[in-house]
C-alpha cells in the first residue's frame, strides 16, 4: 500500500494533507491513553466509526486519544462556539416544503419551469436529489457553478438543455427552500458556514478543539465539494496534520483530482441566489 503526498502549485492548502490507502493500521497504532482527544477521526459513514472502535476494542487499546465524529457535527460545534446553536432543516422538512410548491406554472420559481414542465413526474424526492447532487459537485461555489455552465454549453443541444435544467433547477430548489425557512437548509449548509469561518481565520477552532493535533478523514470513497472545502478551511485555520484515508479502488484517482479541487479560492463561498 502506498503513501502519496500531494503537490500543489497554486497555494499550499494541500501541503498539510497526506493521503493513505489501506493504512488504517497507522491510525489504530496511535491509540494511546490521553486526558483529552488529540485526534479527530472524521468518518462520514457511521458504521466505519464503529468498525474502528471495534478493532480497538478487540486489541484492548484505549479510545480516548480519538474523537470519532462526522464532519457536520464538527461544523456544528465550531459554529456553536461563535453563535447561538445553529439549526437546520432535515430531509423530511425539505420534502414537506417541496410538496407545497405551487402547481400553477405562473406561481413557480423560474429556475424550476423546465424541470417541472418537461418532466412531469418530477416530485419532491427528485427535486431534492437534484439539489443534493448539484451541492455535492459544486458546494454552490460560484467558480464551480460557472465551470459547469461552461462545459454544459459545449454539449449538443438537447444534452446541453438537460444539463442546464439540472444546474438551474438545483439552484432554484435551494433558493425556494431558503426563502421558506429561518433555519439553514441542510447540515451541509452548516458545513459551508463553518468553512467560511475557518477560511477567514481561526473559525472557533482553538476554542473548541485546543488539543487536536491531527485530523483523519476516513473510509473515503468520494470527496464531495462540501467536504473538500471544509478540509481546505481546516488547512487554513489550523496547523493540524490532516490524513486522508482513501480506498483501493479510487485512491489513485482521487489523489490526482484533489489538488485541483483544493485550488479553489474562498472555499465555502456561495453563488448569489
Amino acid at each position, binding site marked *: 500500500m502506498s503513501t502519496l503526498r500531494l503537490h500543489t502549485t497554486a497555494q499550499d492548502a494541500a501541503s498539510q494533507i497526506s493521503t493513505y490507502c489501506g493504512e488504517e493500521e497507522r491510525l489504530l497504532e496511535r491509540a494511546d491513553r490521553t486526558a483529552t482527544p488529540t485526534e479527530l477521526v472524521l468518518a462520514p459513514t457511521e458504521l466505519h466509526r464503529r468498525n474502528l472502535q471495534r478493532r480497538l476494542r478487540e486489541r484492548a487499546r484505549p479510545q480516548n486519544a480519538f474523537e470519532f465524529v462526522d464532519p457536520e457535527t464538527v461544523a456544528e460545534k465550531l459554529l456553536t462556539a461563535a453563535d447561538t446553536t445553529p439549526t437546520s432543516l432535515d430531509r423530511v422538512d425539505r420534502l414537506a416544503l417541496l410538496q407545497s410548491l405551487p402547481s400553477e406554472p405562473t406561481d413557480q420559481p423560474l429556475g424550476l419551469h423546465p424541470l417541472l414542465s418537461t418532466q412531469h413526474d418530477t416530485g419532491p424526492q427528485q427535486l431534492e436529489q437534484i439539489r443534493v447532487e448539484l451541492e455535492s*459537485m459544486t458546494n454552490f461555489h460560484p467558480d464551480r457553478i460557472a465551470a459547469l455552465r461552461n462545459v454544459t454549453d459545449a454539449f449538443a443541444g438537447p*444534452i446541453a438543455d438537460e444539463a442546464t435544467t439540472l444546474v438551474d433547477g438545483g439552484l432554484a430548489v435551494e433558493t425556494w427552500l431558503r426563502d421558506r425557512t429561518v433555519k439553514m437548509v441542510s447540515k451541509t449548509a452548516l458545513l459551508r458556514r463553518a468553512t467560511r469561518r475557518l477560511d477567514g481565520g481561526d473559525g472557533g477552532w482553538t476554542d473548541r478543539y485546543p488539543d487536536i493535533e491531527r485530523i483523519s478523514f476516513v473510509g473515503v470513497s468520494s470527496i464531495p465539494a462540501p467536504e473538500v472545502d471544509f478540509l481546505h478551511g481546516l488547512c487554513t485555520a489550523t496547523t493540524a496534520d490532516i490524513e486522508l484515508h482513501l480506498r483501493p*479502488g479510487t485512491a489513485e484517482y482521487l489523489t490526482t483530482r484533489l489538488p485541483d479541487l483544493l485550488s479553489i479560492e474562498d472555499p465555502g463561498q456561495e453563488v448569489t441566489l
Partner: protein
Amino acid sequence: MATISEVRDRGVNVRDIAVVARDLDPYEQPLTRAAIQYGVTPVFWTQLRVTRTEPYALVKALCTLFADGDVAATPLLAPLTQRWAPPTDAAGWPLEQSTIHAHLEALPSGRRSIAEWAATIPTHTTDERLTTYCDWLQAHCEPEPTPETVGAVLGPSIDAYRETSVPARQQADAPALMTTETAARATVRVTRLVEQVTHKYDEWLADGTVSRSWDAVRELCELLATQRPGRREHSNARAIDIMEANDVWALSVPIVIAVGATAAEWPAQTDSVVPAELQEAVLSGAGETDIVAPRTMWGEGRDRDHFADAMRAAERGVIVTRYTQTGDGDDVHPSPFLASLNMETVSGQARTQLVSTTPQLPPAIAALLPASGDSDPAPSETSHE
C-alpha cells in the same frame, strides 16, 4: 449457508465469519431462508423495512382509528390484531388472533364513535379485555391531539408491545428465533420513530406546517419511517453478521464470504439525475471542470472500493460465490473484479457434496481453516447454492 454450517461444525466461531453483499436488499430473504434451513441465525446490518413490521402497523392502526372517529368493528380492533397490550396488568395479553376473529363475528356491523362502541361492546361479549381496551381508547381519544397526547398514546403502546407482545412471540417462535429477532429490532426502531414523530409534530405545529390531527401524525410516521435510518447493530453473539460491502471498511474478520459476485451486481449502475455526458466531463476533470467534485459512484470506482475492502477485511481467506443463471435461465457473467483475485475454484462435484445429506467441506475451503495451519491461504471461489 451450507459452508457456514460446515465451517461452524469444525469449531469456527460464527463471529469469525462475515457474509458480504454489494446490496443486501435482494439477499435478505433468500439468505434468511437458507440460514433457517441450516440452523444459523443471521443478523442483517441493514435497514429494516420498518413499514412492514408489526409495531409499525400498531402505531399506524392507532393513528387511523383516532383520525377516523366513526369506525366499523374491524378498524376498531385493528390495534388488537397488531398485538396491542395495556400499559399495566398485561397478564393474558395480547389477544389471540382467533379470539379477535370471534369478537369481530359477534360485533354488530356499521360505524360508531369510540364512545358508542364502548357502550355497545359489553352487550355483545363478556371478554373484559375488550372493556379494558375501549376504556383506554376513550381516555385517549382526542381529535386534535397535542404532541403530549401523541406521546402518551404511542409511547406506552410500543412499550407494552415490547414488554408483553415480544416475549409472547418468543414462546411460540421458530428455531432460529427470527420472528422474535425481527420483532425486537422493529420495536427498537419504532420506539425511536415515536420519539421522532412526537418531536417533529411539535416543531411543525409551532411553525404552522400542520394543524393538530391524527392524520398529520400518521403522515409524519410514514414520512419518517421511509427515511433511510442510521444503521444499528443488533447484538447477538451467536449470530452471523451479514453486511453490505461498504460497511465492512476497516473491519478484520478471519473469513469473509462475498455473495453475488456477478457482472450485473459488481459493479452496478447507480441512479443519478446528472446526464451521462456531464458525468463523464466531470469525472475526467477536463478543462475547467477540474475544480468540480466528481461522484465516484458514477463510474466503477465506488464499487471497486467496496469490493476491495471486503476482500481486505478477511484475515485468513475469502469465499466468493456467484450464481451463473437468472431465474429465467439467462446466463450471468462473473464480476470483472474477480479477475484481480488469485482464486482456487471449487469443483461442481465438491459443491454438490457440500449441500448433500452427507455434507463435506470442499478441500479448498477446509484449507482456509485454522486447523490446517495454513497461514496465508488463497481465496476460493464456489458457486452460488
